[in-house]
């Protein structure tokens, strides 16, 4: 049996991290945020694994591609893009007599035909710096209005067919060197199906409060954790039992290595649970454990009714979380390594319904944030003159933004997406 201490030492030498303590976003589950997740394999970190990523950067590149971190924020439920990035068009005003955002509240984006929802004001600093951009009219071809089918298409990066893997899982597979390292990809409260690969692994954390291994008084903690690890080997031949076994060493490992990111002293202080998740993401980047992809989930965007109040609260959380994240990675000196991207399964109907809300729609707007993006302009296109069944049409394939993000991470993009998708120029060349 591998002792826990040996296990930790072998796993990357971050032993001796302070005792686990709570995080700030555990209540997210209580608040019904987690998007249902697809199969996510977890497994043991073999004793021989090295966690330090290889850094085979081209000499002229200031930030090696292997050091880059993509953070994908999933707004589950279908965020209403029209009230998020508000167009200055009469069609918008006509379609939204009750839930249109009053002109005087909007945050105008100069030299564009758009304004930000007032809740997104904290992000205007990055817009003005040229470190934030938007892509309009993004969706999936033959958009379904089903939450689940659309979410599957977005998270897998595959449209019109089912996929066992997520788009980032395939990137992890393609770029994996040696044994899988579950800490390359970390899911915080959602988005984990994006990280599912055939051979790579991810760490899935749904609750910060839960993310520690506690034993009651009178029990030798190290001894019991060692015994817990021992229940995982040898693996059973039954696949389900083996999956339950594999979860154990990867959990013990992740708890030890990530403990520093969950120290409560000031995580999310004064902010929301969502802000806490962003804070944890920024801390994980600062830990320097080779994490390259992080997903963050937040839910509740299915605003069929009372949308004005509900979406404002959600976008408040989102903007405060994203701004806090950017400030922390800047302060830690990691900003140049980081890009943040939003996704959501669909936009909402252009016309409002009778409940002060909007029903499921099609194309929508997504944001990119970070020094690597091509700022000061809105990419893609919002076409309110040619609605499809009352919806803004999908004019940009979701995989166009994925393609640019994968290019930025170092590819091989076309292999991962199964084709060549048009680049919008949303990342600076």
């Amino acid at each position, binding site marked *: 049996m591998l002792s826990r201490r040996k296990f930790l030492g072998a796993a990357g030498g971050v032993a001796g991290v302070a005792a686990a303590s709570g995080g700030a976003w*555990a209540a997210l*589950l*209580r608040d*019904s945020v*987690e*998007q*249902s*997740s*697809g*199969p*996510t394999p977890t497994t043991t970190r073999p004793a021989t694994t090295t966690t330090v990523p290889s850094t085979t950067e081209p000499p002229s590149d200031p930030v090696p591609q292997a050091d880059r971190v993509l953070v994908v924020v999933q707004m589950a439920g279908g965020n209403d893009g029209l009230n998020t990035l508000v167009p200055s068009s009469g069609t918008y005003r006509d379609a939204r007599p009750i839930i249109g955002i009053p002109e005087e509240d909007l945050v105008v984006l100069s030299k564009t035909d758009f304004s930000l929802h007032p809740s997104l004001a904290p992000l205007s600093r990055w817009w003005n710096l040229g470190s934030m951009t938007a892509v309009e009219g993004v969706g999936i071809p033959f958009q*379904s*209005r*089903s*939450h*689940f089918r659309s979410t599957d298409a977005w998270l897998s990066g595959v449209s019109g067919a089912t996929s066992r893997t997520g788009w980032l899982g395939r990137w992890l597979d393609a770029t994996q060197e040696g044994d899988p390292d579950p800490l390359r990809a970390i899911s915080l409260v959602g988005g984990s199906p994006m990280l599912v690969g055939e051979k790579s692994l991810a*760490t*899935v*954390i*749904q*609750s*910060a*409060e*839960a*993310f*520690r*291994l506690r*034993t*009651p008084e*009178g*029990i*030798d903690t190290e*001894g*019991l954790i*060692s*015994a*817990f690890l*021992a*229940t995982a080997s*040898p693996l*059973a031949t*039954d696949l*389900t*039992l083996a*999956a*339950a*076994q594999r979860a154990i060493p990867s*959990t013990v490992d992740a708890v030890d290595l990530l403990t520093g990111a969950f120290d409560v002293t000031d995580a999310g202080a004064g902010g929301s649970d969502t802000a806490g998740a962003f804070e944890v993401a920024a801390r994980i980047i600062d830990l320097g454990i080779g994490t390259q992809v992080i997903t963050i989930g937040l*839910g509740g965007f*299915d605003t*069929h009714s009372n949308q004005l109040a509900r979406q404002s609260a959600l976008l408040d959380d989102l903007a405060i979380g994203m701004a806090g994240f950017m400030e922390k990675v800047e302060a830690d000196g990691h900003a140049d390594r980081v890009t943040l991207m939003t996704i959501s399964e669909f936009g909402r109907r252009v016309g*409002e*319904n*009778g*409940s*002060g*809300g909007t*029903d*499921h729609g099609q194309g929508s707007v997504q944001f990119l944030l970070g020094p690597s993006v091509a700022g000061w302009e809105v990419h893609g296109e919002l076409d309110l003159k040619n609605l499809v*069944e009352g919806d803004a049409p999908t004019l940009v394939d979701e995989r166009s933004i994925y393609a640019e993000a994968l290019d930025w991470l170092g590819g091989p993009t076309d292999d991962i997406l199964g084709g060549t998708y048009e680049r919008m120029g949303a990342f600076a060349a």
Partner: protein
Amino acid sequence: MDTRSEIAWLARRAGWGLDPGELDDLSTLGTSAVLDRLTDPDSAGVSASASPWADFEPDPDPANDQRARQNLAATSMWLSHFSTGSRQFENGLAWFWHGHFAVSAAVVNHLPAMLGHLELLRARALGNFREMIRAVTVDAAMLVFLDGASSTGSSPNENYGRELQELYTLGIGNYTEDDVRAAAVALTGYVVRRRAGWDVRFVSQRHDPTPQTLLGVDGVRDVDTVVDTVLDHPAVSTRIAGKMASHFLGSVSPSTVDEMASVFADSSLEIAPLGRAVLEAGLAGEGTPLVMAPVPWIVQVMRSTGAVVEDRMVVAMLRNMGQVPGLPPNVGGYPGASAWLSSSSTAARFSSAGVIATRTPDDAPVLTAAADGRWDDLADLLLRPGGFGRSTIDALRDVSRQSGRRPGVGRLALALASPDMLIA
């Protein structure tokens, strides 16, 4: 499987575990009699049980601190009913239907209406599916959850009209966007009078009576015609049989699902015969091992151990593992196995096992078996009469009898946290 293994399987899958000693009693009774008691409790002479909240009258408009206390009390009554209710499969199905409709207390935000919804599902858990859908369609909690209460003829809200077809009955691919709109229009007119005890009322001025074409059927104009049109569709029996089969059995072949669907369709969508067909298929070896969700895991473990844990702590453990009764994360219901194998859920299960072992009474058979190192007895008491796997037994042997404040506590904690106990 031998009889003892069959009874244990039924208790793990169809019911909510067993109290110490109960596996002996039911094994004497035999598999067939136990199956009758589960799926046809009236004929088998199993007394009906009252609502879990029969004696509970929550304040409909509580102050904030009282709200949290009431929610906790209601959750604890529910969990306790799972352990003690005489009709274990009725409760097992009530839990399945709760996940199926996925109404969230956080969205409804009115405890009496939420409990009314859950009781509606429990009372009809073994009844007729068509009647269940009819009742759910005009249930106050559902009208609020999916916005039927604010859907009007002049401005229909599609939320319920869509999910009725996509999630609750037909499944994607069996309806069109026009069908979504048609159902939404025909179902308009219901309101929930929040100031009058959340009374549901039909207001004809808010209803659009224009006859709609739904799923190819003309003249659909109200709840009854919508429900009948949707429930007459042949996709219903296959979809519900498939969902129930995967809930209780794991992965099963399409031909098995088709057989169950025939049973369901031939009985005019009566749920009890379908439930019996599902359990019989499982006993015959259909299906795969299942990763247990936190709620059944904790109820079964608490029963086997007899542990005494404060309500507040039980709910905290469930929250940490990622599943709180009454709070499905979205309209798709509770997530599946991958969520329960996540790092945070795994860590929380380990921590919870320690608490439960510590709170297990001195005279509990599981504790003495653990202290004595009688691993096969311990596994049997935990409803695994086939014993633990090799890895878990070897790991148990490495834990000192003296680990914990009382002999056997550390070993029991490890057994409860083991991967074997997560698989039903």
